[in-house]
């Protein structure tokens, strides 16, 4: 019952979020602000995670390829495929569920407890649309860009470490990466990314917007937003793989 109650409330929140805006210009300005604060400001953490991710996969793959019969270019293939298909979209989204998700829930929760959301409602502003729509759309626009950057940086990390340690030459790494690249893999990664962006932004918004209580409850809502987002990302990751890769 409780699950259905939350599902219904979440659906109603989404329908209000996508209702017609009172003043389009104001919403567009908010969208730009949110795209910057949620997406662009996450570039640093995405870059660090991606570079190390690529480097570590290169080392791990090399460690497991003990046979001299296997070409070192396979390392490039493994790093490329696993990065594009799984690691860049999923790992980065999990990391951003922590950073962006808690940010959204805390911001909205603080606005709720300090009556700022009530102030919007009394004025006649659709507070859900005004606050949540720009966050969802801003993140849906910026996360795919971040994931593409992550893919590139992850491959760069693998290429650099492979070259620097002598595990695999730069040319062999690139050859391996190119040999397995398929457009559909990239399209699949983008479908996952849009899904994850929607999950992180909407679930965290729901947790923050409906906070009831004080500062302790704001903290709890931030924690819940991260946990629920991560679990839903993993579930949808599996579901999408099952639906789009094996059917």
């Amino acid at each position, binding site marked *: 019952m409780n699950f259905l109650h939350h599902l219904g409330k979440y659906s109603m929140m989404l329908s209000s979020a996508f209702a017609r805006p*009172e*003043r389009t210009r*104001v919403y567009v300005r908010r969208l730009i602000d949110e795209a910057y604060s949620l997406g662009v400001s996450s570039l640093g953490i995405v870059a660090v995670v991606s570079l190390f991710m690529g480097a570590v996969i290169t080392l791990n793959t090399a460690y497991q390829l003990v046979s001299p019969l296997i070409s070192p270019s396979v390392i490039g293939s493994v790093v490329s495929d696993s990065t594009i298909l799984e690691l860049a979209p999923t790992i980065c989204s999990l990391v951003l569920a922590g950073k962006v998700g808690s940010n959204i829930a805390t911001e909205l929760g603080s606005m709720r407890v*300090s*009556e*700022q959301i*009530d*102030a919007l*409602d*009394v*004025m*006649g*502003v*659709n507070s859900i649309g005004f606050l949540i729509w720009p966050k969802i759309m801003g993140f849906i626009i910026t996360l795919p860009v971040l994931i593409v950057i992550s893919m590139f940086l992850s491959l760069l990390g693998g290429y650099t470490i492979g070259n620097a340690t002598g595990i695999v030459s730069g040319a062999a790494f690139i050859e391996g990466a190119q040999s397995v690249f398929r457009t559909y893999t990239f399209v699949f990664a983008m479908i996952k990314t849009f899904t994850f962006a929607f999950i992180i932004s909407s679930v965290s918004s729901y947790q923050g917007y409906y906070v009831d209580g004080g500062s302790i409850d704001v903290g709890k809502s931030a924690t819940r937003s991260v946990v629920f987002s991560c679990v839903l990302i993993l579930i949808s990751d599996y579901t999408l793989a099952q639906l789009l890769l094996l059917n």
Partner: protein
Amino acid sequence: MSIKIKNLFKSFGEKEVLKDINVEFEVGKSNMIIGGSGSGKTVLMKCIVGLMEPTSGKIMYDDMDFVSMKGKDKRNLRVNLGMLFQYSALFDSMSVADNVAFPLRMFSTKSPKEIKKRVDFCLDRVNLPDAALLLPDEISGGMKKRVGIARAIALNPKYLFCDEPNSGLDPITAAVIDELIKEITEEFKTTTVINTHDMKSVMDFGDNIIFLKDGVVQWKGTNDELRVSDDEVLNGFVNASQFLDKDHK
């Protein structure tokens, strides 16, 4: 432009918080809702401004029932409501000027130049002409209340609601806020509803007073009637404010 509350009930589960409220708030007057903690003042005000839905009853704004209103009509009416919140509820990511300009940008058709002029006027009106570029974090509690008033009057509302307007303020600042609300009520002919337990404000500028106790209207009347009331519960509440004994009774 008056507000009439008819047979209003509000319950939370089994608990009945408001019981059969019947009151009228007059135009151009300071209508005060008083009562102890837990008497239902805040719930009543939240029902009146639409932040809570009553269990039953009517809230009539100019003979239009706010409770049964939907969508666009409700939104249009809300544009005529201004509210000063207990903790000001300023948008902390916006400057003072942007806070005041916010309702104008959302609901008026004014040009940026006209909006700026109106913002300057509202900030002047609350004696904060130099605070426009400051953030809410950079101003005092009293200034925040004044910015809250400036934001509330930006769209020239017909109805002004103030929830505990001078709570947490020193007596001098509280008197300034009271005076400002009184002036604005008279100047703009707003129907002002003030939720307070500050008896000094009530005595100084309350025109009509409603006393709530345990969710019921225990007493209602004018300021003069309050001074000579023989309602024991009301007098018990009023006399608990020490200053009254000296200055007002």
